[in-house]
Every structure is written in structure tokens, then in C-alpha cells.
């Protein structure tokens, strides 16, 4: 019973944190963009514009909600709902901190420590493409359908390479559970991060994560110059808000996955020393803080790249996915296998 209450509490907290971080990512994105262009960015709503996400949200709610006459009403509403739901679902299997000993029971700071965590994430991520596909299809608009076709092609192509690069990590860890992947990186004074053992795998995963979240340089599905708004051309009001918002939630979750698969999750250097000298709760808080810092760095990295690199052309995107990343990830897998054999 207590366990269920704890988990429900964790779910609610996670939900709120994801939304909060996503909301402030939109603010951060605008600030980062501005700073990289030698500007100041939004600074009128509250001190240094800190209330900007609220103002944006309010604006979205106040807008007229238009459903085009020839659109399929049901699917049109379903699209953004699926996008948002799948974006939020992935946070369930991410271990946010080490296990806690509370009131005599061991509880983990993870909603569900399912033993196929990484498969679950891949599955839910690929469900996300339905949100975009259905939304674009239901809009009954050429731009939307082109945008959603691009999105689905891109996501399907890059999922392959992404999966392959994860397989290498699974081989070294010997487990599909994310919490085990994270705890296996504890070695070498908390610096046994996978990125040092799998640099190529990390690079492939990073590129694929950009493509999966439809971020620049792979933001072809919403390429304004060719496709007006891409798959959300016909959307307005909070439905549009959901699409835009789910992109930021996705970005947050992708950063969390990168951080936990390749950058040791909540592990940090000399953490055994810290663990021995602090109380358990404080240690958990520190670990979660370290994890969040890693995630926020990657969120920043997503934005940093967005304001640096121009967009790919569609054929270049496909070339990169099928002819470069996929063979490379298979090669990476083979090399990993070879070294594992050698160690045995």
C-alpha cells in the first residue's frame, strides 16, 4: 500500500517536473537563441522574463481553436493527444536516483523498474510517430501530409541505427533494465561511464536522438521554408501547444536517456566517499541533482546545436541514416562483441 502511494506520488512529481522543465525549455530556448545571436531575449514578463512560459501558455489557451472543415475531427484531436501522452510515458522507466531505505522498505526512485526498460522506451518512442502521422493525415492538407510523411520516414530510419547503438550498450551491461545499466556505470570511482567505452555508439545515439525528436538539423517535418508549418500547419490554440510542448518533453526525455545510458545517470566521481559521509536522503538528493544537471546540459546542447547548424536536405538525411549511421552502428556492435569475447 505504501509502495503504491509512493509510486503514485512519484508519478505526479515526475509529471509536474517534466511539464515544468518542458515549459521552461521553451523559455530557455528563446534565451539561448537570443544570446547566441547577441540579443537579450524575452525579458518583459516578470524579472528577466521568468514568467514568459505562463504568458505563452495563456496566449495559446486564448487563441481560437480551429478544426478545418474537411479534417477528420476525431483523428485531428487524437494526434496531439498521442504525441503528448507518448512523450510523457517514457519518463516512467528512468531511474532518477539510487534506491532509498525508507521506513524499513527499499524503494527505488523509478516509477517502474521493468526488466525490459530500454525496449519499452524504444517502443513508446516509436509510438510517438503516430501522433505526428495521424495529426498530419487528419488535417487533410498537402503540407501537413508531406510533413508527417517526412517525420515518419525519418523516425523509422533513425530508429534502426539508434536500436543498434543501444544493442552494444546492452551487450556490455548484459541487461535490458535501465536501472542496471546505470548502476553498472558505477565503477572507476563513479566514472565508468559508457561514453568512454562506447564513444562511437554514443555519437550514433546522439545523432539519432536529434532525428527522433525532430530537432535541427533534422527538423524537416516542420521545415517552414518548404512546408509552412509541416505536420501542424492546420493546428491552432492548445492543440498546437501540445505538439510544440511534446517536442520539448521529448527533448527532456531524450536527454535523460542519453545521460543515463552513456553518462552514468546519477553516478558522479567519488560518489562512494560522499555516500559514506552523508545521510541517505541527502545522498539521494545529490544524486538526483547530478542527474538533473546532466540532463539540463544535454537540453542545452540540443538548443546549442539548433542555433548552430542548418537543416539537412531530405536525401542527405536518408543517406546519413541508412548509408552511414546504420553500417557504423553494426560495426560498433561487432567491435563490442569482439572485445567481450577477448575479455572472456
Amino acid at each position: 500500500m505504501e509502495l503504491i502511494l509512493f509510486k503514485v506520488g512519484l508519478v505526479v512529481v515526475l509529471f509536474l517536473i517534466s511539464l515544468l522543465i518542458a515549459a521552461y525549455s521553451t523559455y530557455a530556448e528563446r534565451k539561448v537563441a537570443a544570446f547566441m545571436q547577441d540579443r537579450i531575449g524575452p525579458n518583459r514578463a516578470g524579472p528577466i522574463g521568468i514568467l514568459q512560459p505562463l504568458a505563452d501558455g495563456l496566449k495559446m489557451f486564448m487563441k481560437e481553436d480551429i478544426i478545418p472543415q474537411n479534417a477528420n475531427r476525431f483523428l485531428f484531436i487524437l494526434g496531439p493527444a498521442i504525441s503528448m501522452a507518448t512523450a510523457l510515458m517514457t519518463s516512467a522507466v528512468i531511474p532518477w536516483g539510487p534506491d532509498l531505505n525508507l521506513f524499513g522498505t527499499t524503494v527505488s526512485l523509478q516509477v517502474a523498474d521493468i526488466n525490459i526498460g530500454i525496449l519499452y522506451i524504444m517502443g513508446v518512442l516509436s509510438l510517438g510517430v503516430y501522433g505526428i502521422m495521424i495529426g498530419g493525415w487528419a488535417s487533410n492538407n498537402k503540407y501537413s501530409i508531406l510533413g508527417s510523411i517526412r517525420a515518419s520516414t525519418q523516425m523509422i530510419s533513425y530508429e534502426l541505427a539508434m536500436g543498434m547503438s543501444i544493442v552494444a550498450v546492452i551487450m556490455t551491461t548484459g541487461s535490458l533494465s535501465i536501472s542496471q545499466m546505470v548502476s553498472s556505470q558505477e565503477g572507476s570511482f563513479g566514472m565508468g561511464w559508457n561514453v568512454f567505452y562506447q564513444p562511437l555508439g554514443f555519437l550514433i545515439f546522439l545523432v539519432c536522438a536529434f532525428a527522433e525528436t525532430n530537432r535541427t538539423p533534422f527538423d524537416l517535418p516542420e521545415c517552414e521554408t518548404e512546408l509552412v508549418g509541416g505536420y501542424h500547419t492546420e493546428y491552432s490554440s492548445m492543440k498546437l501547444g501540445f505538439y510544440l510542448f511534446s517536442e520539448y518533453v521529448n527533448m527532456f526525455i531524450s536527454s535523460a536517456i542519453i545521460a543515463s545510458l552513456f553518462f552514468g545517470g546519477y553516478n558522479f566521481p567519488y560518489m562512494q566517499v560522499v555516500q559514506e559521509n552523508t545521510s541517505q536522503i541527502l545522498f539521494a538528493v545529490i544524486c538526483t541533482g547530478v542527474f538533473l544537471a546532466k540532463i539540463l546540459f544535454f537540453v542545452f546542447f540540443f538548443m546549442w546545436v539548433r542555433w548552430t547548424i542548418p537543416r539537412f536536405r531530405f536525401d542527405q538525411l536518408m543517406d546519413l541514416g541508412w548509408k552511414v549511421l546504420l553500417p557504423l552502428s553494426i560495426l560498433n556492435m561487432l567491435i563490442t562483441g569482439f572485445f567481450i569475447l577477448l575479455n572472456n
Partner: protein
Amino acid sequence: MQSLTNRSKVVSNKTMSWSERIYLPAILAGLRITLAHFFKKKVTIQYPEQTKDHGPYFRGVHVLKRDDQGRENCTACGLCALSCPAEAITMVAAERKPGEEHLYREEKYAIEYEINMLRCIFCGFCEEACPKDAIYLTDLLPTSNYTRKKFVYTKDMLLEGIAPEDRRDVSKRRKGIREGAM
């Protein structure tokens, strides 16, 4: 032919080297540049609170001047309206009555004087045409408004006040480029 700058690059279709083809060094260089800009000094001017300094040639909203004794300079000769390429200026002339000498410098004055800021192209011909030093362009910008009607600036909006603190300083004003050239 000799090029004017040394910035041009000779285009070549050479095949890319391996490091260029994997694209990553270029990306890293790009990331370094944007990060450097991240910490650079920002160039934004926070407009309503801060304003940019305008040069003496800047042409903004007009002011109708008075002389030292507070009398209106304008004599409603209509030369400004005549010179205006956008036909933004209209006026109605009136004759000065006895006892109004402290208000108007000449025997004839403009009882109504309007400039349509939506028509005006801020060329400054009006101030150059004026024989009485009555109209000047200032560095004020016309404010935004909800109706077209509000952009027609009437005489009471254009005329400077009599009190010394209501006077508009135009001593630094330089009219037109031509004046300097001649």
C-alpha cells in the same frame, strides 16, 4: 580585374577530404563560434526605456517653432505644403487681429495646421522650404495608434509651448544634406 576587397574566395569543386566529409570538425567549429557569441556583449537597446542617440540629421516628428518672445513663427505662406512631395501638410490661414501681436509674429498666421504622419515620408523638404524658420523636424518618432485619424497631427500637437521648459531645442539640428554641401 583587381577585386575591391580581399574577402572573395576562389570556388573550387575539389573533392572533400575525409575530415570534411565526416562533417564533425566543421560542426565543432560552428559550435565553438556560437558559444563564443553566447558570452559576447549584447547589442540590444531596450527601446521604450533606452533610446538610441540620433544624429543631427535625423528626421522625425515636426515641431512648429515660436520666436524668443513666444510668438509663432509660421506665417502660413504654404511653401512647406507646396514643397511636400507626399502632400502631407494642410493649413488654413487667418489674419492677425489687433491685440494678438504677442501671439503671432507676422500679420498672417496658420489658424489650422495639420500634418498627416501616415503620408509624411520624413524627407525634411518642409523645413528646408520654410522662409520663417517655423518648422523643424525633431528626433521624436510618431507613436503607434489604433486609428488612422489619430495620425493626423493637429497644430496643438505640433506647436511648442511658450514656457521655457516647453520649448523644443533645435539648435543642434542640421537641415538636409544640401545645406552642408552648399
